[in-house]
């Protein structure tokens, strides 16, 4: 079933949680609502579920207006961040709850619950109490419970937020497989970009009650629509440069920026992702501050390179992060290298390097100034 959110606004007192948000979720999509806390993502999810009512706007399922339909009539499965299991009931009874209140026949309940226990890989644990399960198991019970009523839409509120890192990754992959099997339209809320990118077909980035960008994980990551998205996706070097005559300047290095052909110079924000930077050792000063090493000049993008000093080198999992200070700059610049490359390069703090951007993103702070 497809979901259509049409111009939803919602305020809590003076706080605008959602500001005229519209969103279509096509049948069978696994969509992530990604954003910082207070961005309105959970409120949007709860409005789709019927747990919260919008101040204005409509919710449609397959074209039918369900805005005024009560949560219990929406045929929506909801998974809560903290599981919200019924503590006094066994796992079996938790999963059976939705069927019991619908007065389903006993045999049908039994069969359905056992099928779901198998689906969430909890065979034989039906007699346990939620307190006797691990966090990951509890969240799987919550999922089975939500699926028991054969919902047409599955909504998940920070489903892995309360789990530890390893379980989170396992459960994430398992949920993706499960979604591929049952193909139900699903929306989940998360503040973790890695989770959104790994799990979702489409990612919707939200901020201050508005949708900043919507697209596949690739689109959002490779072509962030706004500075906020760029920032929020994290791990980014931000510098203040300027744009002029189709070029942006970052520490004097020109970067092609055809979006701004005007002669009048304007300040701009220049974003560089740490893994999209090349680094080479120079250990030599040129009198004009420009890099003299030929290998550093030899960059395919023609962007020029920036002289800098290495400050720190830190290993983080499969990558090595090198923190540098570009000459004449206040802020630091981070460069991520694969561990092997970093080992071959064997840089030491204090060494002189040249940094070459492979890819640069430029945002003008106030688009309305653009003529």
């Amino acid at each position, binding site marked *: 079933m497809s979901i259509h959110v049409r111009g939803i606004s919602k305020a809590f007192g003076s706080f605008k949680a959602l500001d005229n948000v519209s969103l279509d979720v096509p049948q069978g999509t696994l969509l992530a609502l990604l954003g910082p806390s207070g961005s309105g993502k959970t409120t949007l999810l709860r409005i789709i579920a019927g747990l919260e009512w919008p101040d204005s706007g409509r919710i449609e399922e397959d074209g039918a207006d369900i805005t005024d339909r009560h949560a219990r009539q929406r045929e*929506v499965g909801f998974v809560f961040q*903290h599981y*919200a299991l019924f503590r006094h009931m066994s796992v079996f009874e938790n999963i059976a*709850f939705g069927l019991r209140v619908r007065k389903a026949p006993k045999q049908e309940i039994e069969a359905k619950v056992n099928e779901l226990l198998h689906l969430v890989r909890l065979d034989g644990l039906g007699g346990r109490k939620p307190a006797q399960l691990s966090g990951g198991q509890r969240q799987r019970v919550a999922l089975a419970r*939500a699926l028991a009523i054969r919902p047409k839409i599955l909504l998940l509120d920070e489903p892995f937020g309360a789990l530890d890192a390893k379980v989170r990754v396992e459960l994430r992959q398992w949920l993706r497989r499960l979604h591929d099997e049952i193909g139900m339209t699903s929306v989940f809320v998360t503040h973790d970009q890695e989770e959104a990118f790994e799990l979702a077909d489409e990612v919707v980035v939200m901020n201050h009650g508005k949708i900043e960008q919507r697209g596949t994980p690739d689109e959002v990551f490779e072509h962030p629509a706004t500075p906020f998205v760029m920032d929020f996706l994290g791990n980014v070097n931000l510098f203040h440069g300027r744009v002029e005559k189709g070029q942006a300047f970052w520490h004097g290095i020109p970067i092609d920026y055809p979006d701004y052909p005007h002669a009048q110079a304007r300040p701009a924000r220049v974003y560089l992702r740490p893994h999209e930077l090349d680094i080479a050792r120079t250990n030599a000063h040129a009198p004009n501050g420009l890099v003299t090493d030929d290998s550093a000049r030899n960059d395919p993008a023609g962007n020029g390179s920036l002289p800098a000093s290495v400050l720190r080198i830190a290993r983080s999992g499969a990558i090595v992060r090198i923190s540098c200070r570009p000459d004449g700059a206040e802020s630091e610049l981070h460069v991520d290298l694969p561990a092997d490359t970093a080992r071959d390069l064997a840089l030491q703090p204090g060494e002189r390097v040249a940094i070459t951007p492979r890819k640069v993103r430029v945002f003008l702070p106030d688009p309305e100034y653009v003529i």
Partner: protein
Amino acid sequence: MSTEITTTRAMRRRSVLPGFGISIAITSLVMTALVIIPLSVLALRAASLGPTEFLAAAWTPRARAAYAVSLGASVVAAAVSSVCGLLVAWVLVRIDFPGRRLLDSLVDVPLALPTAVAGLVYSTLYVERGWLGRFLVPLGIQGAYSWLGIVLVLVFVSLPFAIRVVQPVLESLDRDSEEAARMLGANRAQTFLKVIFPAIFPAVLTGFALALARALGEYGSVVFISGNMPFKTEIAPVLIVSRLEEFAYAEATAIAVVLLAMSISLLVVVNALQQRVARNAQ
């Protein structure tokens, strides 16, 4: 000797909280001085009677009737308090209305008001020509000098306990599981009966036990409203006092011991039930 030293040292090392020794000493002192010694004296006094004398004093038809009135009215009053207390607590926790804070502080008034005053006010209200009695008595509802009157004042004195025990549990109730029940298609009644009530039932039982204990020991208000008619509206504490007025100290003690034994057994049963339910609810 050496083992003893190591044990104490081990205990000292294991305890995170300071002052274990002094706090246990104070606790024992308080419990001994305030509870154990008076109760022992009571038991000793009763023991000075032989078994036959004891039975003759404590098991007369009039005394048996008084126990029945005491226990019956207290159980009914505690039950009414539990139900009403749950409702009041629910309203105080879940509904935000003007005057909520005021109502919340009114809850404790029965604890502060001399219960004799409550008894007097109730009897004035419910007598034939009282404000409420003039409407109720023609309908056959006797609020004053009746068993009903006893229950009324016992509810008054025990209600705060029933409310105050349930209130924090309702406040800490996980709203998510209610929403989960609604999402799964449960209506309001089903959500309350299957999700909310099992979670608060242990607290309701604890409130019932406290209300019951309070009602069993109540004297001041009942003496003014019940009429104290032997075999009908005479509660055991009133009987004890009337025995004392006749200088029949041993008899009074014997009745007190029986009342105490009955109360303790009742409370033990309720507490055992409460613990079982609470374990189940975990």
